[in-house]
C-alpha cells in the first residue's frame, strides 16, 4: 500500500531523531559530569531514607553505619556510579525515557508529589490544551483571512495583513504577553494576569469552565497573535500561486461555480505546501508556547522549565527537554500523515 509505506518511512526517521536526541543528551550529560551529580544525589536520597528507617530498629550507631555504608556500596554499583559514565549510557537512556529521574527540587504537583514523573504527567495536558487551542484558532484565521486577501491582492486589506505578518515575525511573543498583562491586567484590570484558574477555583462546573476561559484569553491571544501572522501570509501566498495555475482556468471554463473552484481547485491544492510550511514553523510554535506559559504562569510544562532553570534542577530539565522533543516529533508525525493524505503525489 503506497500510503502506508511512505508513512512508515517518515515515522521511522522521526523515531530515529528521538533516539539520536536521547543519545546526544545523555552523552552531554555524561561528559559534563551532570549525570554523575544526579545519580549521586539519587543515591544519597535513598541512603538517607534507608538510614531513617533502619535507625528505628538498629540502635547501635556503629552497626547502623556499617549497614548504611554497605547499602551505599550496593546502590553505587546498581546505578553504575563506580564505572565511567560512557558505560552507563544505555541505562541512562532508559531512565530518561521512563522519566525515572527522581525528585524535582522545589516543584510540587497539586497533590504534593515531587516526583518528576508525576509532575510531567500533571502538567502535560495543560500545555497540550494551550498549544492545540492556539494552533487551531491560528489555522482558522490563517485559512479564512489568507484566502480572503488572496482574492484581492494589492488591496488595502491585503497590504495590512502582509505588513502584520512581517511585524509579527519581529515581535517577541513573550514581550507581547507582558505588554498584554500590563495593559489588560494591570492598567485596565479586566483580565487576570496569570494562572489557569482563580484561587480558589470555582466548584460549579459551568463557573469553573468560564473561569478557565477567562484566564485563557490572554495567553491564547498572545500565542495566536504570534502564530497567525505567518499562517495568514503563507496561506495568501500559496493560494495566490495556486490560483494562477492552468487547471483553475479549466475549472472555470467547465462552468463550475466559483465557490467550488475555490474549495476544490485552489484551497485543496494549496493545502499541501501550506502544511509543509506549517511543519517548518512547528519548532517556533513550540518555543512560543514555552515562553507564553512562563509569562502567564500557565501551569504547564513551559512554566516547569522556567522553574527548573531558576532552581537549577537538572533532573527536571532533562525530563522536560526529552518530552518536548517527543511532543515535537509526535506533532510532526501527525502533520506528515496529514500531508500524505492531502497530496497524492508524494505517495511512493
Amino acid at each position, binding site marked *: 500500500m503506497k500510503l502506508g509505506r511512505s508513512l512508515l518511512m517518515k515515522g521511522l526517521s522521526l523515531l530515529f531523531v528521538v533516539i539520536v536526541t536521547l543519545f546526544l543528551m545523555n552523552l552531554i550529560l555524561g561528559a559534563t559530569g551532570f549525570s554523575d551529580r544526579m545519580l549521586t544525589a539519587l543515591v544519597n536520597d535513598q541512603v538517607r531514607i534507608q538510614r531513617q528507617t533502619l535507625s528505628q530498629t538498629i540502635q547501635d550507631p556503629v552497626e547502623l553505619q556499617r549497614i548504611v555504608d554497605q547499602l551505599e556500596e550496593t546502590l553505587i554499583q546498581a546505578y553504575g556510579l563506580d564505572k565511567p559514565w560512557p558505560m552507563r549510557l544505555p541505562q541512562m537512556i532508559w531512565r530518561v525515557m521512563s522519566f525515572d529521574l527522581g525528585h524535582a527540587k522545589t516543584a510540587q504537583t497539586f497533590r504534593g508529589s515531587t516526583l518528576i514523573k508525576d509532575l510531567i504527567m500533571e502538567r502535560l495536558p495543560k500545555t497540550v490544551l494551550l498549544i492545540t487551542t492556539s494552533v487551531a484558532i491560528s489555522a482558522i484565521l490563517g485559512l479564512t483571512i489568507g484566502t480572503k486577501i488572496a482574492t484581492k491582492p494589492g488591496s488595502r486589506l491585503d497590504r495590512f495583513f502582509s505588513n502584520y505578518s512581517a511585524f509579527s515575525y519581529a515581535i517577541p511573543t513573550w514581550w507581547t504577553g507582558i505588554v498584554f498583562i500590563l495593559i489588560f491586567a494591570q492598567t485596565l484590570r479586566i483580565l487576570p494576569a496569570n494562572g489557569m484558574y482563580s484561587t480558589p477555583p470555582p466548584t460549579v462546573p459551568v463557573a469553573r469552565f468560564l473561569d478557565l476561559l477567562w484566564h485563557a484569553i490572554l495567553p491564547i491571544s498572545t500565542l495566536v497573535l504570534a502564530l497567525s501572522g505567518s499562517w495568514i501570509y503563507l496561506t495568501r501566498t500559496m493560494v495566490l500561486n495556486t490560483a494562477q*495555475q*492552468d*487547471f483553475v*482556468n*479549466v*475549472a*472555470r*471554463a*467547465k*462552468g*463550475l*461555480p466559483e465557490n*467550488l473552484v475555490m474549495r*476544490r*481547485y485552489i484551497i*485543496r*491544492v494549496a*493545502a*499541501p505546501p501550506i502544511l509543509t510550511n506549517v511543519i517548518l514553523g512547528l519548532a517556533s510554535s513550540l518555543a512560543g508556547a514555552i515562553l507564553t506559559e512562563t509569562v502567564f504562569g500557565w501551569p504547564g510544562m513551559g512554566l516547569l522549565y522556567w522553574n527548573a532553570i531558576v532552581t537549577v534542577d537538572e533532573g527536571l530539565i532533562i525530563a522536560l527537554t526529552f518530552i518536548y522533543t517527543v511532543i515535537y516529533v509526535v506533532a510532526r508525525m501527525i502533520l506528515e500523515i496529514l500531508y500524505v493524505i*492531502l*497530496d*497524492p*503525489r508524494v505517495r511512493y
Partner: protein
Amino acid sequence: MLLQISDLYMSYLTIRGEVRAVDGINLSLESGEALGIVGESGCGKTSLSLGITRLLPENVSTYKGSIVLQGQELMGIPRDRFRREVNWKKISMVFQGAMNSLNPVVKVGPQVAEPLIIHMGMKKEKARPRVIEIFETVGLPEETYDRYPHELSGGMKQRVVIAMALILNPPLIILDEPTSALDVSIQAQTMNLLKRLKKEEHMSMIFITHDIALSSDISDKMAVMYGGHVVEVGTAEQVILAPKHPYTQKLLASTPMLRSYSEPDFIPGAPPDLVNPPQGCNFHPRCHMAMDVCRREDPPTCLLEGGQRVECWLYGDKNE
C-alpha cells in the same frame, strides 16, 4: 451556421497601456467543420478563444461584438446564466498545456465526471459509466478513472483532457495548441484521434495553433491571425495552396520542406506592439509588398473568389 463572430473586440489594461488583443474579428463556422486559427505567439489567438468562452482576465477593458452560437446571441447573456448554460454545455475547451490542466490532487475520473454532476445533476454512480464510455472513445482503458494525473503519461493526460471536453457533447470545442507540449509520435496519435472524432462524432471545432502544417492536417477552414486581426480566411486548400496575404505567403515560405532544395524564408522584424499598433496596416513594417496607402489607412476586408477573404490593400478593388 453553427457559430458567427462579428466585430469582436477585446483589450486588456496593463501598466504600459491598453493592449488590443482582439481588434475587430469576423469569423464563421458550420456544423461539423474544423476551423483552424493560425498565427505567431502574441497575435491574439488565445485571447480570441478566451473571448469566445468569456474567460476574461481581471484586467479586461474592452469586450464587445457579437457571438452567435446556434442562433443564440451569447454576448448579452448574464454571467451566471452563461456559466450554467453555455460553459462546457455549448462550448468546451482544451487548453494549451494539458500537463497542467488537471487538478493534481483529484483523481482524473471524477474530474471528467464533474460537468455531468454539476451541469446535468447526475449522481456520481451514474456518471461513472458515462465517463468510462468517453474514455473508450478516446482510447483510454477503464482503470484510468481511478488514476491521479501524475500517474499518467503526457499522451494519456492529453486524451483525458480531450475526453473531458467531450463529456457533455457540446456543439463546439475549442482546442488551443493541444499538441505543442507533446512529442511527435504522441502528436500524431492525438491528431488521429481528433480526426476520427470529427468524422465519427461529427464534432465541430476551432483548432488554434502556430504550426500551419499541423493546422492544415485537420482544418476545413483556416484563418490567419496577425496583430489581433484576421488577415486571411478561406478553405484550407485556398490558404495553403493559394495564399493571398503577404503574411500568409511568408509564413508558408518559412516552413522548412523535407524535399525542397530552396532555403526556408523568414519574416524580418518583430510582431507589432499591441498597445501602439502601427498606423494603417499592422503588417506594413514587415511587408515586402507594402504600398503607400498601407502606411496610412487600415486595409479593407476584400472578398475574393471561392469565398476567400483577405484584409489587404493589394486587393483593394475587391472591397466588400
